[in-house]
């Protein structure tokens, strides 16, 4: 896995734990294995077989689920002959009625825009890698941004919030769950899998190793070989 560095290592063979700064010589683990920092236990490398293809597929699924959910009925209630329905977008806008427009914008960003943006950035970064092409311009910045957006993508927290809200209402009214609700529930599962396949180090490594302009494409697969040590 990872070993203490020795004099004469090239910089590109070294890796520093982002959590505790411990320095290691990279000896990339095989798919399904993990390289863990020996002093702070931070997971440094955790490659998954076919990860890039899977992450692209799941990110695409996330975009489709989210965009579809926006146009589907979300929740509706009925009590004493009165009826009301809300879409996901309207749920985000709820705060603007109470003069909290900023909070509405924040909620819509956290549950819709940021998850979509993050998925699109991942697709942008990983599609050329999947096709064994040169990364598209700005791919490095895009990947860094998508990783920084990760904690702010809160669709899964929203789903739990919806669950709590439903328990609160069921006592006073009959609630109908719309298609958008189920799409969001599915989104949680897809996001968990996507983030499980996503090994940050492997993607940086792939972005670095991807063929230079003009290099014959047939050379590309051979570059994977030294990764297993």
């Amino acid at each position, binding site marked *: 896995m990872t070993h203490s560095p020795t004099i004469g290592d090239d910089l590109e063979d070294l890796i*520093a734990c982002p*959590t505790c700064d411990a320095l290691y010589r990279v000896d990339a683990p095989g798919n399904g294995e993990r390289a863990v920092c020996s002093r702070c236990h931070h997971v440094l490398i955790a490659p998954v077989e076919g990860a890039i293809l899977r992450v692209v597929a799941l990110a695409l699924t996330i975009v489709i689920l989210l965009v579809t959910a926006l146009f589907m009925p979300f929740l509706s209630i009925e009590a004493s002959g009165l009826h009301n329905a809300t879409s996901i977008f309207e749920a985000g806008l709820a705060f603007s*009625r109470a003069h909290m427009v900023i909070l509405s914008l924040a909620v819509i960003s956290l549950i819709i825009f940021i998850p979509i943006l993050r998925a699109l950035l991942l697709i942008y970064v990983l599609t050329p890698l999947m096709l064994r092409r040169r990364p598209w311009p700005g791919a490095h910045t895009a990947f860094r941004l998508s990783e920084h957006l990760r904690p702010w993508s809160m669709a899964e927290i929203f789903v739990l919030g919806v669950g709590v*809200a439903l328990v609160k209402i069921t006592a006073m009214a009959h609630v109908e769950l719309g298609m958008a609700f189920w799409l969001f529930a599915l989104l949680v599962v897809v996001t968990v899998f996507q983030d499980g396949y996503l090994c940050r180090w492997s993607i940086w490594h792939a972005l670095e190793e991807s063929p230079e302009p003009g290099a014959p494409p047939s050379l590309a697969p051979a570059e994977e070989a030294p990764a297993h040590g």
Partner: protein
Amino acid sequence: MAEAHPTHLLTARDAGMVACTDCTRVWPLETERCPRCGAKLVSRDGHSLSRVWAWWVVGLICYIPANLYPMLNTTFMGKTSGDTIVGGAVTLAMHGAIAVALVILIASVAIPMGKFVAVAYLALSVQRGWHTSKLRRTQLYEMVEFIGRWSMIDVFVVAVLSALVQLSVVVSIQPGPAALNFALSVVFTMLSARSFDSRLIWDSIERDGEEEDLT
């Protein structure tokens, strides 16, 4: 998982290098931007702790009114009543929804409070050079980063309730002023935790025995 000899480990800084926390590559100490990913490189973020405390304080300032004012106002047959975070959880528990009341109390009270204490403890432990387990502190930090965002749940509950429960004169729910304070408090504490440079925890190995003030 490789179990080397923790005390003999070399850090990037010991080796005269600076590590990129975005992509884990190392570069000569004077490098300013990571040539691989473009992130700004700092061996140790000297302003980390002052940013941690600044966000921590504004987060706390927002958290106090978030608990005093109602998160949502319910108008039932023309009569309006407000529910604070704790009040809302108590009402839920009295209606028998104990599990959901617990979710709210954990997400909106236990996690934010625990986060204030944990971040303050981590920052103080580095500033004062406390000798508590570095591994435990790192794990505490990773837990704070992982769990902290879940506090946002109550804001989403209020959003869904006030969008959905709009049954003309019979019953309607409006967001209360605490919702904005609470959301801000969650955002600020997340920023506070993210400002913390966890490498500082491990540096105290080298500084053992020295009286040094990091601020």
